[in-house]
């Protein structure tokens, strides 16, 4: 049923192509999974499941097309089908858990952030990053999703519409509402820190 161009690929060829085209998306995909599930083990499972599904349907994937959007779409659907009902309240996150996560040693090893940066600046950056993360994590999952896709992963509205299976107009209005909620949460934080410029 796929468009077989000439001869059938051997399993080795297929595996090699699969790895070359789809494994480079692992990092953004895992990050997306983590932001959806807010749990490292769930993110792990979700990503594995996504790759296995992608492998099963790899014949339908047209080489050279948008592998990233394709995988994000599969992951999003798997999340809706399985994880959402499992974790009843993905929108609420225990703040201490997030804190614990960011304090864990793993994170400090992150790609060369440390070495040359001024410590003071770095801790301010961390503080802002933590605040953005907890504001984002407190948003309903649909809002969180569009912000991640747009601002973190840089998908276009059209790609987002395909990933989420919704019209572009809905992408646009959802993004607008999501940003308003995020802004509200971050403004509360800014006020609590003594910035009152609104």
């Amino acid at each position, binding site marked *: 049923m796929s468009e077989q161009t000439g001869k059938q690929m051997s399993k080795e060829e297929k595996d090699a192509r699969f790895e070359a085209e789809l*494994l480079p998306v692992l990092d953004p995909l*895992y990050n997306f999974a983590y932001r959806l599930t807010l749990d490292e083990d769930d993110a*792990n499972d979700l990503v594995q499941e996504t*790759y296995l599904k992608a492998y099963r349907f790899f014949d339908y994937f047209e080489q050279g097309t948008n592998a990233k959007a394709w995988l994000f779409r599969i992951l999003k659907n798997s999340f809706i089908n399985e994880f959402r009902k499992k974790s009843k309240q993905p929108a609420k996150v225990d703040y201490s858990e997030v804190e614990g996560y960011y304090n864990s040693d793993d994170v400090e090893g992150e790609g060369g952030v440390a070495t040359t940066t001024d410590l003071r600046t770095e801790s301010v950056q961390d503080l802002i*990053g933590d605040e953005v993360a907890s504001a984002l994590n407190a948003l309903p999952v649909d809002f969180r999703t569009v912000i991640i896709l747009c601002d973190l992963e840089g998908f276009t509205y059209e790609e987002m519409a395909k990933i989420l299976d919704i019209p572009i*107009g809905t992408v646009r209005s959802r993004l607008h509402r999501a940003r308003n909620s995020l802004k509200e949460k*971050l403004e509360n934080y800014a006020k609590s820190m003594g910035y009152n410029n609104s």
Partner: protein
Amino acid sequence: MESKFTEAYQKTSEEGHESDCDKTAHLLDLIIDGEASAEEQSFFTTHIEDCAPCFESHQKQKLLKNLVSGHLKRVIVPESLALSIKARIQETA
């Protein structure tokens, strides 16, 4: 042509006809996301040159986007993940 979006973007003035500030506000996300047409872009740029409140909202919206894109930490993929994906794929017929 903007009709399919307008209802989500409320606030049109009583005559049902948008002020330049309303129009600018509706374009804000398109502008910061690089999705605006050349025409929308030039309308927007011209307007915010003269309108301080709209200029200010543009700055704020850009800042918000940059907070996410520039400050949200990426989580580190466990090393075992790529290996287990490869292993499971190889087992698959």
